[in-house]
Every structure is written in C-alpha cells, then in structure tokens.
C-alpha cells in the first residue's frame, strides 16, 4: 500500500507539471517519492547573483505530517551557498524545516522560503559554529536539533 507521502507527492508533482515552478526554481530530478532534487537561483539583485544551488529533499512515509529532510547539495557540481544559516555540508538551520514545519507547506513553498532567505542575506559568511558542526554532523539534517538563532535572516 502506497504511503501517504506517495499520494501527496504525486499531487505536488502533478501540480508542478501542470503549473510549472516559480521563477528561479526548477525540478531537477523526481524519479521516486523518496528523494527529489531541485535547483534554486536567486533572481534580481542579491549577493548570490549568477549562482545556482541544488536542494535535496528526502521524504519519510509520514510526509507531510513529518517534515522533509532538506539540504543543499554539495558535490563536484554544486556548492552550498555562503550564508549564516547554511553549513558548508549543505545543512540548513531554518525553523520551517524543524519545529515550525506544518503540513500546509510543500516542496515548492519550502524552496520559495529558502530563496527569500538567500535573497535577503546581507553578509555572505558561514555560521559561526560551522567547523564544529560539520565535523560531528549526522548525515541526515533532521537528526540535528538546531537552535534557531534569529528569525530575520
């Protein structure tokens, strides 16, 4: 029996196919209902002009009750954006991916939120505890209990 997540993700996928994605966001790969890849670009004037990032979404069978595990792809093609809430291994410290997650959110709405998080950035730098975190970080960012520093950035 298909998990709840499958039916919901089928809907989201159909929605993307029918209505397209918002500007700056493209669906890179969604071959199954466990892992999706999307690219993210900040359009207009921003510190990230011309940079393209990739996001990896991992879904549990409990999605959307349980939040997706979202991180920036770090491989030979993509880098994690230099941002005070993004660690160099691609993990993101954003409350909507943790305690503020709500099933009303979707893959696209998470992308849009992260896009605006990048767009509003004023200082391109890593989180202060980047090295310490990356050295001990679990593979899945959902296993980290982030402390959300501030809601503004």
């Amino acid at each position, binding site marked *: *029996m298909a*998990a*709840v997540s499958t*039916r*919901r993700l089928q*809907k*989201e996928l159909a929605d993307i196919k029918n209505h397209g994605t918002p500007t700056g966001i493209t669906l890179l790969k969604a071959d199954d209902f466990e892992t999706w890849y999307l690219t993210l670009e900040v359009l207009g004037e921003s510190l990230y002009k011309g940079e393209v990032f990739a996001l990896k979404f991992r879904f*549990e*069978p*409990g999605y*959307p*009750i*349980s939040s997706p595990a979202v991180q920036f792809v770090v491989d030979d093609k993509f880098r994690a954006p230099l941002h005070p809430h993004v660690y160099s291994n691609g993990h993101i410290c954003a409350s909507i991916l*943790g*305690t*503020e*997650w*709500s*099933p*009303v*959110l979707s893959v696209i709405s998470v992308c849009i939120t992260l896009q605006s998080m990048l767009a509003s950035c004023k200082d391109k730098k890593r989180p202060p505890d980047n090295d310490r975190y990356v050295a001990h970080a679990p593979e*899945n960012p*959902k296993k980290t*209990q982030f402390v959300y520093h501030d809601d503004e950035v």
Partner: protein
Amino acid sequence: MPEPWVPTVDDLRVKLCYICREEERHDSPPNPPVAWVHPCNCTLVAHESCLLTWIQSAQSDSSRAPNALKCPQCGAVYELESENPLPLRILNSLNAVLSASGRVVSIAGLVTVGVSFGLGVYVIFTSYGAYAIQEFLGKELFDILLSDDPSNWPWHAYLNLPLIPVSLILSRTNLLDMFPIVPLFLAWTSSPAVPTTTTALNANFRRSIRGPDDSYPFAPVIHWPPSPIMVTILFPYVSTLYRRYMMRLRHWVMGTQSRNRPPVRRIVWALNEDGPLRVHIGANIQDDDNVPRRGGDAQQQQQGQGEGQQQPQEGGQEQQGEAEPQDPAAVAERTIRVTGASLGRYIGGALMIPRISSFMGSLLLKLSRHSVLLRKFLAVRPPRTAPVEPVSRWFENQDFTKLGYLGQLGTGITLALQVVCGGTKIFADSDPVWWRNSLGLGLFVVAKDCINLLHLYLTKREIETRRVKSRSFAGVDYRELDLITPPSAQAEGAETQ
C-alpha cells in the same frame, strides 16, 4: 430579518485537504463519507483524521507542541473537543507535578554529585544504604544488625550499603529487573548481631550468672512469617509473574496485542527539555481507511509516563504487520527521550522505595489493630525485651573438629537449610517489620500500576474521542469560495422566501 447565510465546509464545491492534498467533489462523495473540518478563520480545510494525526504528532514533541493547535496560515487556535473527565485531568496534573519534582531531583542530584564527587559519593551512598536498611527492616532489627555506630558494622556493610542506592535505581530498568537488590538483602538475613557495648555487656553478665548461653541460633524451620531468605528467593518469581499478568491486563484494557517490543535503538538525552505534558500513547486509534499510522503519532515516550518499564503500546507500523526497520518513524518509536524530569522521576522514585515501603508497612500495622487476621498474617510481635544473643556462642560450644568430614559437611548443609527455611533467630524473634514492609511495598506497586493504567486508559479515551471543532466561514470573503450554491443564488433564495 433572516439570519445572514454563512457557508460551512459542507457548502464547498471542492474540498481540498491542506494536509494530504486529496480533493473531494461535492457531487461524488466517497463511501463511507469522510469527515471534513474547517477549524480556523481562513480558507484552509482538512480531513478531520489528517488534522487529528497532525495535532497528535506535533503535540508529542515539546518543541513543536506550540504550533500543534494553530492554523499555519491564519494562526487561529483550533478547538479540540474530547472526553476529558475529571479523573483524567487530576491524573494529568499529578503527572505534571511529579515531572516537576523529577526535575528538582535531577538538579539536586547533579549538585550533590558535583559537590561530593571526590569527597564522598561513597559516604553518601553508604549512608543512604544504612537509611534504606533502617527503613526497611525497622529500627529494632537495624540496631541489632547494623546500629548507628559505623565502627560496629560488619565488614560486608561497607560493600553492601553503598550498592543499595545503585541497585535500587538499576532495579527500575528493564535490563536487570529486580535482580541486583536480592543478593544485597540476602546478606542481612543471615548476618549476626553486631557486637555493640550493650550486647557485649549483657552477654557477659548473663554468662557470668548462668554460664554460656548455648541456645540453638536458628528459628524452627516452619514458622510464620516465612524466613526472609525464602522471601527474597521467591521474590523474583512473584514479581515476574505479577508483571506478566499486569501486562496482560494492560493489553486487555488498552486493546493492544501483546508482542515483544523491539529493543530500544537509541536514547536521546534532552535534559533541559520539559517534555510534553501529556501522556503519549500509541494505542489502536485506527482510522477507518487504511492509512498507515504516521510518524510521531504513535510515539512511545517514556517521560510523559514516568514509568519506563511497562509500556505495551505498539506503534502503528507494527500493528500493520509491516516491520520497517529503516523507517525513521519506527526508529523514533524505539527512542527513549531522557529528559531532566524523567530522569529525576526515575531516580527519585527508586530512592523513595525504602521510605514508601516503611510507610506502607506502618499503614498495615495501623490497620492490623482492627483485624486479628491481618495481625496474624503480618505476624506482629511486641518489641523484643530479651537481649540479643550473639550467634557465635552456640558455635563455640559445638565441637566441629570431632566430626568427620562427612559429618562436617552434613552439619553445614543442615545449617544452611535452617537459615534458608527458618532464618536466624534474630529475625525470628524480632517484630517482622521487613515482612509488612515488603507486603506494603507490593500493595503500593499494585496500586501504582492500577492508577497508571487508569491514566493510560483515560488518555486513550481522550484521544479516541477527539474532534476538531469546525467553524463556519464567517469572516472570510466567501464570494471567493467555490461554493455549491453561489452566494448570489443564496441571497436571491433568501429574498424570495
């Protein structure tokens, strides 16, 4: 003037669940019908079952709990209706009080350990052990076997006593059951009296008058109450049997199936976390459709419960018979969250055992004043008047060397049997405080488990009867809603009436 017509969720042409994104058209309702709710002030609607699953899942995690009952869009607070009888509310607040005191115990414990580390963990543990013995055996036996003066203590006291708090705490874990406390207690049941000044004087005085006292140091084999050694040997069996039947009762009450719980995979230390205030159960609250239970809703959490050892609820994954060991939700179910409160309740509860048993014992004693039968059963004796005989006198008078090896062996076995079945005379002659304390502790455990079960049951009922209150679309510009009957037609209809 007719009431202005306000559409509700049932007037929508297409309902779209904001959680699962399933649609339902008004002209093709599913069979059986699924309940929909519009719980807030904006246009979001949802399946009631989806929303309840989300609420329960979010409430089980203290960091997400604040968002559990809020609309993610308009922020309106959902109104839950459920059976929440007074006993459940009382039990919930009791639970909260216990958790709060658990936190205090944790902090106090941390401070104590920190302060006393190099100096005297040993001393503190030992004096706790002595305190526990006094509480459990009663002052009379305590004075004979141990006394307040550590210089009289037998050598094994210095090993035995500090292990008592440790083993009390361990005895509450599943790993060791009641095992470690038994050998510790056994040491005391065969222990001779300590040579305090009074006993020594008494003995010398008596000896000078009547000659050496060579009365047999063991109690008769058959007597009531059973010898402490018998009780301690039988204790693990009784407790195992009890647990098994309690578990059955629990499964029966909760409607769960008994099956082996998968081993705990990981332990989360979240000491500064408050822990959710509710008791979380993953009972069979099965939706009508075949939706598998989701993520956190069936989380078995230790801390709301306080009692680690007996939680029979299975997670949904197991109910469905689909073991998904890799599924994080299933893994989460096997996660014990150790919070400051749960740790404190755990340790504090363990260290309270001697105090509780002594209290229950004295309660039984009070009750026994009104019942001869109970008095007989408890074998209450007046305080001893005769001075204690040091056991060694009898041994001094026996000439073991005259016996052959076989004879020595035989005497040894007889003595051992006597100790096991009858116990030492010290125990037999004293008021068996330990006996009524053990019975009292047993009664306490049974009562506690029953209250616990009642709490679980009421909580289960509360969750089962939950309904999210549906609101009308008042306040929403409902000309924008896709209604079965457009508002203009409604207005016309109202006018023509």
